[in-house]
């Protein structure tokens, strides 16, 4: 009898333990093990996340609609929504976006709100603490409170929310997107706050690279004259956004004389050269096009992930008909066109984050500014942790912004920009912003006046908003709320009574251009103006002349422009940097001293057409050489143990081609006196040596597509759901600005006219479900540089789509 009980109990324990592990997974210090029983069973597990998500039912029915609607699906799975009113339109946008991108919407807002520990446990605590402290969700709440003054905004956000929740609430566990199953958590209801958090997440992604710490270190380490050479306020060479001579009537330099910065170094990691991403947009007026109508192009460059950051959609009611890409989680089209106008965005890269050193009392309940005492606002925030106790975090809020670190903290990939403990971070997007008003107004804009009125509401993140209309107006605006500051804002400043933010630069005085005589406008993250300008706009990683000059040169000489011409310009891989610097570099090489590998590589460079093509070998050699040249020239200038950044590409170009005697060439680390020639030769030999060590003597594996392949990884880093080893042409040195994990996230070219004709593509697919045929459907065509024709419908019964028109009942 005892034996019978014994074997029963042993088996019962074994079965219970197995059930527990297979039902909850294991949260260890390594990769968490998913709940395998839940995950692999064919009835509710991943096998259910198959192509059935691709089915389009003929009929949908929602109690939340006020009247019926129609959705036409084209062959690329772009929904063309035809609704009777705004409420139904944004309800359906919410429903459609959620049904394709729910997990992405959940994860992105969760990450920005500092709620990742709720699903990943203790490993994410520091990530959450940081994101709670920079205050994305607090700012989103302030934004939502402000939007309550605009009834049509709340109507739009609540209709979108209800549409998302119509999907969420109808979702049965077996149909949860597969990432929920892998990470073992449940979808939750959407809120209007989450839409605002998405906006703040975007603002952080675009603004969150302040250079204040690096500039402070460089300024302290270098003499004034060398600092001005290496980190000039305006880089040489660039073609500005606002055409020169297109006077802003503000020819007066910003106050730069009395730099006030803290008098000590701020420690952090070495970022190395070239921490940048960027975007292009341009518009040509009818005077330069074949059709006589403006053509507008835009390709915003972002980190590339799957699911893609964009969801393509057409949104039509009797009052508006707009086509473009939307941001999952946010109603409206963000970049696109309607019957009359088109618009596009690039990032400003101006300075929107200032750091102030705060002089706290010991318990941090008060702080002193110039002898005057202020009370600290102390907030408590809770970080919930899966499988562990919650953590209560204390946030210290000052008039100069929140304190991000109170003690020294190991710097890492998400917090490197913070200069150190007791630094307040002031950010324009902390204020209640109203960018949703801008997008809603642009979606239904009919002319230049509508565009200007829409921009009034655009306060952050700063964008170069380019515009064209079928009344033949073109315009561009460097638009955000810019606090009026002096140039000390470039550095970490001591908090003073006078240097906190007060007024903003009026919109009419911000850099902008309307219908310039040159007949085109372009922006590629370069500084907006050249020469004197009355205000400090600052600079946080303005991206160099390489793209803007190429675009300017091409557009300047083009006539009778067609959409196809501009599509080709978007995938142009030509590097003006290589053209401008490489002949000088090659001339300086002492060929007698070269070994066979070095001679072979040099021959590749000499025969190069300066295009970053995936199957050429020269780009990889040039990149390695230029990077080494930058290191050899600059690495001795500032202590590399500190947080600092290399001088820009243009500064190095300028030294090489026109300042051969610069003291920057001499390394402080060696007794010998280096000059331009010796640095160019030494860096060449080192670069080739690195390539030979990695790839062997010159062979096929030197091809740029192999040296620098593109990864489009999954948003949560789930390897099986990403795409690896892609070989597109392009480089961040070219208009087609593709890096190893970022690049043109949406390429769009729109020709205006009686009806607009658009072309576009993004490196992803309409479905966010890895089990869908449409998950990564556009990637291969995107790699090849193709654009799709965008189907701008005026009715849902268009013959091109009539088979796939879905009736939606209320």
């Amino acid at each position: 009898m005892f034996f019978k009980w014994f074997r029963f109990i042993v088996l019962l324990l074994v079965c219970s333990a197995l059930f527990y592990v297979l039902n909850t997974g294991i949260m260890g210090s390594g990769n968490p093990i998913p709940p395998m029983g839940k995950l692999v069973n064919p009835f509710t597990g991943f096998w259910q996340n198959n192509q059935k998500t691709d089915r389009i039912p003929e009929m949908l029915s929602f109690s939340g609609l006020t009247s019926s609607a129609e959705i036409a699906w084209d062959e690329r799975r772009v929904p063309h929504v035809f609704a009777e009113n705004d409420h139904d339109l944004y309800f359906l946008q919410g429903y459609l976006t959620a049904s394709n991108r729910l997990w992405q919407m959940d994860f992105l807002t969760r990450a920005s709100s500092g709620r990742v520990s709720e699903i990943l446990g203790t490993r994410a605590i520091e990530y959450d603490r940081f994101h709670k402290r920079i205050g994305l969700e607090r700012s989103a709440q302030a934004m939502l409170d402000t939007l309550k003054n605009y009834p049509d905004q709340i109507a739009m956000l609540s209709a979108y929310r209800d549409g998302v929740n119509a999907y969420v609430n109808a979702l049965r566990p077996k149909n949860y997107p597969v990432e929920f199953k892998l990470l073992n958590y449940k979808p939750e209801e959407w809120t209007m706050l989450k839409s605002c958090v998405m906006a703040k997440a975007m603002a952080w992604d675009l603004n969150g690279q302040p250079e204040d710490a690096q500039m402070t270190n460089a300024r302290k380490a270098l003499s004034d004259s060398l600092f001005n050479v290496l980190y000039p306020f305006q880089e040489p060479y660039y073609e500005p956004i606002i055409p020169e001579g297109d006077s802003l009537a503000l020819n007066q330099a910003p106050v730069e004389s009395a730099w006030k910065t803290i008098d000590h170094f701020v420690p952090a990691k070495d970022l190395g050269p070239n921490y940048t991403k960027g975007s292009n947009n341009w518009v040509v007026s009818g005077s330069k096009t074949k059709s006589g109508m403006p053509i507008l192009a835009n390709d915003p460059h972002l980190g590339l992930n799957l699911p893609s950051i964009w969801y393509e959609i057409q949104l039509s009611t009797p009052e508006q008909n707009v086509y473009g890409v939307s941001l999952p989680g946010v109603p409206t089209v963000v970049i696109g066109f309607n019957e009359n106008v088109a618009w596009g965005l690039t990032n400003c890269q101006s300075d929107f984050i200032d750091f102030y050193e705060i002089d706290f009392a010991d318990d941090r309940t008060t702080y002193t500014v110039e002898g005057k005492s202020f009370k600290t606002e102390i907030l408590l925030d809770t970080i919930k942790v899966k499988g562990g106790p919650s953590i209560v975090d204390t946030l210290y809020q000052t008039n100069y912004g929140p304190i991000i670190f109170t003690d020294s903290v190991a710097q890492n990939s998400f917090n490197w920009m913070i200069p150190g403990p007791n630094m307040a971070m002031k950010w324009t997007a902390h204020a209640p912003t109203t960018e949703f008003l801008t997008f809603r107004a642009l979606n239904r804009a009919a002319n230049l006046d509508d565009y200007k009125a829409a921009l009034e509401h655009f306060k952050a993140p700063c964008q170069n908003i380019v515009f064209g209309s079928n009344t033949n107006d073109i315009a561009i605006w460097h638009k955000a709320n810019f606090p009026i500051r002096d140039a000390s804002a470039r550095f970490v400043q001591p908090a003073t009574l006078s240097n906190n933010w007060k007024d903003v630069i009026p919109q009419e005085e911000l850099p902008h251009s309307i219908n310039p005589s040159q007949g085109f406008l372009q922006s590629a993250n370069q500084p907006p103006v050249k020469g004197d300008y009355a205000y400090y706009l600052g600079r946080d990683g303005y991206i160099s002349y390489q793209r803007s000059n190429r675009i300017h040169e091409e557009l300047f000489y083009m006539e009778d422009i067609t959409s196809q011409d501009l599509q080709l310009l978007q995938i142009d891989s030509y590097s003006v940097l290589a053209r401008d610097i490489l002949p000088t570099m090659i001339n300086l090489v002492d060929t007698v001293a070269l070994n066979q590998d070095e001679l072979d590589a040099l021959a590749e460079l000499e025969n190069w057409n300066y295009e970053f093509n995936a199957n050429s070998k020269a780009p990889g050699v040039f990149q390695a050489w230029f990077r080494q040249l930058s290191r050899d020239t600059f690495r001795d200038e500032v202590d590399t143990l500190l947080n600092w950044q290399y001088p820009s590409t243009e500064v190095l170009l300028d030294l090489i081609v026109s300042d051969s005697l610069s003291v920057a060439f001499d390394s402080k680390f060696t007794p010998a006196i280096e000059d331009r020639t010796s640095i160019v030769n030494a860096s060449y030999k080192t670069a080739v040596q690195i390539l030979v060590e990695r790839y062997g003597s010159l062979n096929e594996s030197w091809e740029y597509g192999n040296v620098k392949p593109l990864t489009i990884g999954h948003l949560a880093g789930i390897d099986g759901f990403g795409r690896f080893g892609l070989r597109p042409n392009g480089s961040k040195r070219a208009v087609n600005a593709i890096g190893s994990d970022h690049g043109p996230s949406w390429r769009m070219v729109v020709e205006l006219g009686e009806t607009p004709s658009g072309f576009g593509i993004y490196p992803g697919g309409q479905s966010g479900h890895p089990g869908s045929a449409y998950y990564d459907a556009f990637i291969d065509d995107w790699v090849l540089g193709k654009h799709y024709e965008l189907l701008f419908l005026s009715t849902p019964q268009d013959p091109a789509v009539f088979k796939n028109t879905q009736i939606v009942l209320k």
Partner: protein
Amino acid sequence: MIRIGIIAVLLFLAHIFFPFWGWVMIVPTLIASAMAKKISSSFVQSFIAGLLVWGGSALFLMLTKSRFIAPKMAEVLYVKSPWLLLFATGLLGALLAGLGGALGATFRFLLVKPRRYEE
């Protein structure tokens, strides 16, 4: 054979109508505790039923609409091939069902004597 059929049909119906992965252990446990004859044969019958239900259902989904998800999940779960993933799914279902069957049988034999020589 009949017992395998009974377990398989009831398990399949439970999975379809009450979505919960744990039926694969619970259903064989309940059936075995009602009608098991031997622990070993209860294990084997449940094992085969689990294999049929999990493996068969996964095979059906694999052949009909899992062209994209199966290879991706094979990558995620480090088994590389979707066919190996299918095999693993079937085997997991079989093992869990088998263990459930054995548990049910040991429970039954706490209450009733096994009829050893019936066959």
